[in-house]
């Protein structure tokens, strides 16, 4: 449990997906105009990241590695398989959510299918491989990364809603200001580097 918390806190705050790795910037900038839609997309990202990471971990461990099912080194197929899994899972999640919770489905709306091409999802899986995480840590990494992404997009959306009433130079309005705000938020999040995640394992 300590390990789980450790990875969760680290990926959510210290190594935030957007603010220190720039994963998922496209949708981050495009969908952060209002808090309501940002909330929907943020929840969807936590959801999909939390599910795809362990599944991609299992695929990598038991199918692609030389010690796996086929006994061959198939790691060069990683990109194609991962992106296929993500695309398929997003569709599946969409169907399940539609069936069991129509209200959540309506709230997420168009954002669920868009998540397939969100860099944060594929990036999370690739980071998981390059850091050689275990299964439980990869679940924590997925949920923590998703939560950090959620925090950042909701915070930016809230700031952007307020900044509409300010007198920003015309050429800087919209996109330019969003970049600079994200940079400032990144600097603020850097102060969290002082957190010692190892303290949670004690």
């Amino acid at each position: 449990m300590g390990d789980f918390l450790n990875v969760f806190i680290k990926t959510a705050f210290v190594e935030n997906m957007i603010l220190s790795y720039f994963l998922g910037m496209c949708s981050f900038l495009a969908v952060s105009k209002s808090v309501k839609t940002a909330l929907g997309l943020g929840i969807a990202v936590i959801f999909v990241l939390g599910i795809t990471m362990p599944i991609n971990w299992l695929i990598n461990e038991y199918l692609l590695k030389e010690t796996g099912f086929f006994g061959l080194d198939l790691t060069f197929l990683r990109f194609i398989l991962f992106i296929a899994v993500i695309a398929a899972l997003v569709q599946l999640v969409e169907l399940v959510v539609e069936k069991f919770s129509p209200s959540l489905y309506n709230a997420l709306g168009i954002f669920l299918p868009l998540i397939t091409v969100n860099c944060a999802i594929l990036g999370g899986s690739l980071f998981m491989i390059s850091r050689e995480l275990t299964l439980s840590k990869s679940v924590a990494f997925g949920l923590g990364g998703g939560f950090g992404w959620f925090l950042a997009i909701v915070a930016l959306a809230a700031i952007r809603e307020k900044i509409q009433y300010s007198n920003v130079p015309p050429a800087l309005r919209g996109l330019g200001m969003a970049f600079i705000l994200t940079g400032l938020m990144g600097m603020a999040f850097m102060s969290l580097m002082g957190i010692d995640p190892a303290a949670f394992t004690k």
Partner: protein
Amino acid sequence: MAEILEKVKIEEKEPLFGPKEKKLLLDPLMDVNPITVQILGVCSALAITSLVYPSVVMAISVIFVTAFANLFTSLVREYIPKQVRMIVQLVIIATLVTIVELGLKALNFPIYKQLSVYIGLIITNCIVMGRLEAFAMANKPWRSFLDGIGNGLGYGAILIIVAIIREILGKGTLFAGSPVEIKIIGNNTTYLIDTTTSTMFGWYANNNLMVLPAAALFIIGILIWIHRTINPKLVDIS
């Protein structure tokens, strides 16, 4: 197959590189730049721009992927059923990115290590998908190929501008890690401007903020500001 070859032949009767083709190649550099105007592909771009050399490698990889993904999608565009086109496009892109990854691993391992997951993230780079959807699905192969190169160049140009600013201000070098490394400003005699002896630049110290992720965001924000001041048509009205 024969059909495709025939089409290529017909196309060659038009001028191979007329004004339209030139426009396709050069427009994305300025007026419809993928990063500063279309907001595409910011994801995998920013993290690697703290040094110029990896950025150049990344730019070349992206140009390769956008150009050939556009070309291949355009070749098969009439045979793709509408419902599965996303999957087909993703498979084409993923294959090309795998080629790039394996090639880079064999040719230049240190850079491969440095770029790590960001090479894989070219798959979800919105420029590639965006251009396939917007251009290659409706245009002939040769033009799609040029459009891919043009957009790759526009993306690469921003990447390299940001990297040059960050590396000079952050580390005081240019092309660090490559065979043509230039040391520009620093605190010992191997640098061109030595801050310990120089009378003009004695006050200067490398700015560590530039190495951090936040700096890339500031620089792109300022580039967008400059770009929109020069070209007021692009200003966000909302």
